[in-house]
């Protein structure tokens, strides 16, 4: 049995990767997140490095380094690693994130992964530098093009905007309108206009997570399970 990380699979960029395969990976990722949330845990580290794929078309969520039970205390800790920050909602980036972590932050991370899977293109490149040292570089041109701003918050929201534009412009031709809409829903899940957040987002942040989890189940899962190729 071959076991790969999703990052490894994305980096190979084999042209033969079918849309059905991408969809199978996307569905199994969404399921894993839902079941984890249903058991009252948040993962806090969803990215292609924390997803294992097998040649039979299944994927499994691992990488529980930062998980916690939803009822447990959140320590508001973060880090400044850019290649991990691109999977984090703007309010959870940097060494001192401004928001407490909720299930919807996992949904945002899932959305970034689903975008990558849909485009079948890695947002992160692992290369060997001139002196043999491992380097981590931005993959897609659009990701690298996010302007360097002194204000980290503005930069974080700039990246979110780039990801949303990428989904809007490139995803429909790869995966269709339903999938695109689903990815955009995930990326905007913490926006006040989101269908996952009814009204004031700040009131949802202190929710015990059950209501959010249920909306997520209803929203993401039923939409993604509906898609067939």
């Amino acid at each position: 049995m071959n076991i790969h990380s999703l990052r490894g699979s994305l980096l190979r960029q084999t042209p033969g990767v079918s849309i059905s395969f991408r969809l199978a990976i996307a569905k199994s990722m969404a399921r894993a997140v839902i079941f984890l949330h249903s058991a009252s845990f948040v993962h806090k580290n969803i990215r292609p490095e924390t997803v294992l794929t097998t040649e039979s078309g299944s994927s499994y969520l691992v990488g529980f380094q930062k998980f916690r039970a939803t009822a447990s205390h959140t320590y508001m800790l973060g880090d400044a690693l850019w290649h991990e920050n691109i999977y984090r909602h703007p309010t959870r980036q940097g060494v001192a994130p401004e928001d407490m972590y909720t299930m919807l932050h996992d949904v945002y991370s899932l959305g970034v992964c689903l975008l990558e899977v849909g485009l079948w293109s890695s947002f992160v490149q692992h290369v060997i530098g001139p002196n043999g040292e491992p380097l981590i570089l931005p993959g897609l041109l659009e990701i690298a093009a996010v302007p360097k701003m002194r204000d980290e918050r503005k930069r974080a929201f700039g990246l979110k905007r780039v990801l949303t534009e990428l989904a809007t412009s490139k995803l429909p031709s790869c995966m269709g309108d339903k999938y695109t809409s689903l990815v955009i829903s995930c990326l905007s899940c913490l926006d006040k206009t989101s269908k996952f957040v009814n009204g004031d987002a700040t009131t949802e942040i202190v929710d015990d997570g059950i209501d959010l989890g249920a909306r997520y189940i209803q929203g993401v899962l039923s939409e993604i399970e509906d898609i067939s190729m």
Partner: protein
Amino acid sequence: MYLKSPLQSSVQEFEDWYRRWDPSWFLIARLALPDIDAEIRQHRLENDDAAPLKIMGGLREAHRARMDTNRRPLGFLPDNVAFYLPKQVDLSSATVCARSDSHTLAILDYVEYRPGTSEADISNDVQNLARVMSNLDPLTCNLLRCEGVKRNNDESGRLRGFSLVFQMPPPRPSKVSLSNEHVNSRSEDDRSTMVSDQPETLST
């Protein structure tokens, strides 16, 4: 009369909310009624294991595993259980290795302990996660089945973190072929981890 407009607005808001979110889905997933499980099983048999029912069954399983504190917690693995022949799955934190006690392959995943945070809290959370994940079906939930937890200490006995020990992914009848991708990539298999075709047992 003065109340009519706010009332209409409230009703409209509620209707909008209800249309967006059907709470029955959520309630069915959490109701502790064996009849629901029997009904789901029956429908899955009759409807070729339709995805929504499969997921509903999995959600009920996950919720039950979380709530049922009478289930035996997965204790920490004894110190004499070791893991050898580790091979990291490239570009991931997971490692495939062999258990010294059962000589079976397992996947290890690490949970970090950050000094300054509560050791008791994380220990409790890790054991709860392991208990839940030991009770879920990997084929339904896309979460690997947990076999136990290993506590990792430094030389002075201080907690560094935990290793979650997972079973290898179960074999699955392939409806979606990945063969193109993986066959093409085998020659440059530097990013993959090859393990035996019989993943459960290590040949010795």
